[in-house]
């Protein structure tokens, strides 16, 4: 196969920080080329250079595409050449329809008037191509993330696309949706479209890619064909060392039951008679890590948030018991006061004050503990934050650094610090390692083990089955708002869990 695209010795600095150091990558025509690396390794930066988000002159090195040197000034120019990038955060407009979104900026118009017939016909053809069975007039806000991702791809295909760059396309998708998306990529490959795929999900990469390039600390480490490669091989390249055990061992024998939920039923906050959570019973022992597995949309987050002082839902009924005593939690602050903590799945939107410092984020849920009289004791607060920075091995210059400047894994460590400082007895962790790279994942697992060792109950919600299985003593399986199975770790396999989901 011929070389389609070559990025040669790309170097990019942000002020004095070297983000990319002499990175080179060669992509052949018609292949699926995976780029992997830890968070902050520079993958997205490289793609932003390719697509002209960082214009020519902003970086050193050269881009050779179809045999010519390219100097893109903006995205428009790279798109004209057939390089289309789909970003991690979808760029769809929620209150416009699918067809309007697909042709936004590229309206099918004559003399300024949009030709809706042409728009619809083309949309239908594109939706068929990506395998999305939806009416073109449906509003994007009314379809799920998985389908939105397909709309993004349809949008890319509506332009002349030779190279499709996907940045973490399956991060927010469940297993089935991911599967569909990956199959679509294989279809597109048959049609001759070259793909650059950035992903943290190694299994996916191994499944679809032809070549794999590993980037570490802003440098290209290696590129190799996807032959006889396994996950450990990639992980070794990404972190620069072997991770023998992906889940650290824990030697805690769970004690008596600490936390119990009985007959928990929750209704949708807006749709009056829609039952979201249906008579859930669940318990957790001291020092136990309990997993909740399920597909996206199974109601796991809704369940956890409804427990957390009614942060979600309406007409909540049922009982929460702690140490055998019933708790009535009318507000989130009451839940926190009663030793319950919920660590959100979406740390950027719901977990952190991005414009604030690490220090202020750490103390946020337990300001009382650093307050003397009327005033917050800022020195004590800083010492607490420094203390957690050490414990968590938080990679930051100091605790006065702003949360938005941290990588995903380090942001998650700040969120965890905050809740550890609040010193809860029951911790509900919702997707604690989403968007976190392999090395930091391991550290987060260690923190979870340490919490169990301290006799706390840890409830982990995760869409990654290997993670739930590797981490939990016991696993509840949830589907459509109900618990459809319970497995001890010894019996838990991916097949056993999927079976229970599918049965219901």
């Amino acid at each position, binding site marked *: 196969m011929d070389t389609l695209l070559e990025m040669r010795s790309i170097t990019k600095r942000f002020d004095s920080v070297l983000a990319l150091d002499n990175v080179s990558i060669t992509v052949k025509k018609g292949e699926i080329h995976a780029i992997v690396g830890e968070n902050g390794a520079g993958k997205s930066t490289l793609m932003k250079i390719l697509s002209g988000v960082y214009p020519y002159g902003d970086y050193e090195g050269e881009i050779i595409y179809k045999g010519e040197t390219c100097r893109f000034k903006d995205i428009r120019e790279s798109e004209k050449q057939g390089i289309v990038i789909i970003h991690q955060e979808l760029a769809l407009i929620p209150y416009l329809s699918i067809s309007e979104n697909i042709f936004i900026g590229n309206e099918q118009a004559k003399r300024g008037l949009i030709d809706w017939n042409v728009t619809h016909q083309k949309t239908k053809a594109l939706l068929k191509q990506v395998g999305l069975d939806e009416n073109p007039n449906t509003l994007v806000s009314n379809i799920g993330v998985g389908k939105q991702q397909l709309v993004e791809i349809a949008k890319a295909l509506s332009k002349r696309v030779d190279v499709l760059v996907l940045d973490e396309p399956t991060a927010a998708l469940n297993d089935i949706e991911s599967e569909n998306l990956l199959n679509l990529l294989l279809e597109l490959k048959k049609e001759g479209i070259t793909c650059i795929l950035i992903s943290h999900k190694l299994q996916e990469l191994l499944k679809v890619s032809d070549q794999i390039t590993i980037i570490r600390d802003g440098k290209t480490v290696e590129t190799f064909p996807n032959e006889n490669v396994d996950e450990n091989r990639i992980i070794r390249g990404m972190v620069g060392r072997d991770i023998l055990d992906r889940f650290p061992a824990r030697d805690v024998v769970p004690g008596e039951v600490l936390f119990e939920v009985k007959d928990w039923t929750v209704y949708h906050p807006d749709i009056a008679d829609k039952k979201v959570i249906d008579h859930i019973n669940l318990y957790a022992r001291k020092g136990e890590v309990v997993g909740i597995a399920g597909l996206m949309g199974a109601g796991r987050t809704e369940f956890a948030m409804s427990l957390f002082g009614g942060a979600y839902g309406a007409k909540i009924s049922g009982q929460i018991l702690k140490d055998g005593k019933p708790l009535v939690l009318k507000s*989130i602050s009451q839940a926190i006061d009663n030793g319950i903590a919920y660590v959100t799945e979406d740390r950027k*939107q719901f977990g952190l004050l991005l414009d*604030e410092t690490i220090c202020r984020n750490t103390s946020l849920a337990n300001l009382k503990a650093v307050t003397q009289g009327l005033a917050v004791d800022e020195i004590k607060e800083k010492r607490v934050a420094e203390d957690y920075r050490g414990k968590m091995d938080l990679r930051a210059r100091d605790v006065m650094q702003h949360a938005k400047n941290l990588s995903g894994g380090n942001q998650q460590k700040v969120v965890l610090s905050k809740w550890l400082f609040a010193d809860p007895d029951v911790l509900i962790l919702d997707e604690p390692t989403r968007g976190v790279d392999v090395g930091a994942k391991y550290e987060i697992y260690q923190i979870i083990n340490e919490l169990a060792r301290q006799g706390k109950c840890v409830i982990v919600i995760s869409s990654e089955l290997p993670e739930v299985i590797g981490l939990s003593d016991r696993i509840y399986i949830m589907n459509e708002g109900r618990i459809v199975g319970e497995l001890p770790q010894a019996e838990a396999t991916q097949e056993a869990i999927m079976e229970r989901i599918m049965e219901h």
Partner: protein
Amino acid sequence: MSTIRGNIKQLGMIIALVAMTILFQITTNGTMLLPGNITNLILQNSHILILAIGMMLVIITGRVDLSVGSLAGFSSALSGIFIISWGLPLWVAMPVVLLIGALAGAWNGYWIAYRNIPFFVVTLAGMLAFQGLTMAVLGGGTIATFPRAFTQIASGFLPNLAGGGFNVTAIALCGLGALVFVVFELRKRKTIQKFEGEVASMPFFLAKLILIAGAIMLFGYWFAEARGMPIIMILLAFLVILYSFIASKTVMGRHIYATGGNPKAAELNGIKTKKVVFWVYVNMGMLAALAGMVVAARFDAASPRADAGFELQAIAASFIGGASPLGGVGKIVGAVIGAMVMGVLNNGLRLLGHGADIQLAITGFVLLAAVAFDVYVKTKSKSA
């Protein structure tokens, strides 16, 4: 480094303020910095400063209050009715007006926080309603004149301890203020050092101390040369210190910043964001009532159209002083600087013989420039 970047706009505004003052000092042939003019400047802008303090907190929560000008007008009308028409003693009338202001703020806050009505609509409605109520209460006329004790609040001066001539009270009070400031800063530096915190380098720290203490003393000198220590200045200093303390040191203050910075995250951290928003509006209402009384006291009359555009000036002062329209960012000191920038601008232009037309136009440009600068700095630091 991060703190320097964080303060860059405020520092920029201070430099702009000083540069502007020097420019006017030259173009007005020295009238700008005459002690009498400085005193006037303070007296004429005191109500905007009071409103800007409350507005800063509202803006930090990511909202705005358009009703404060009308509410201030309504409060000044009420003070006229209570004090002049009904002859109530000041110690009854003034707390009652403050209470009514707080209730009006609670009315706004209730609809915004608990009923989810957009703040723009609620406070616009308030703006119209309070304007109407003012006219209704005053019946279209003007009520004058207030007892001397009341007008003293806005235009009175502390008696001179030394009798006539140079005003010893003013210089002594400012000296005391400067001393307290220096002692506090030194103590703060010591405690930070004790716990191995990072502090600014000694020369930098000293320069800051001398500049600020010097500025306080300079004001003391101006006041002493003119009519003495304005009573309103004491009130303003008290408010600035009190609200700075609340905003930067208390749990309530943290909750206000968190509510504005990321309401959903704040909520999930157990912060009762609705309650925070409600009380910030209650506070704004109370400060609006205070500002209204200060205006009434200065004009020695309660009149229907005394409140023109106060709310917009307070909002502008907050933005010029570093607040972010998106919420979560801003300092009380910023509101003070913003109000001073606008005060100096208006005063300087007036001294040069320009009318309200030019003053408004230029204020508009300064507001836009200040926010544009802020956005520019932010986008630069984001890409870095």
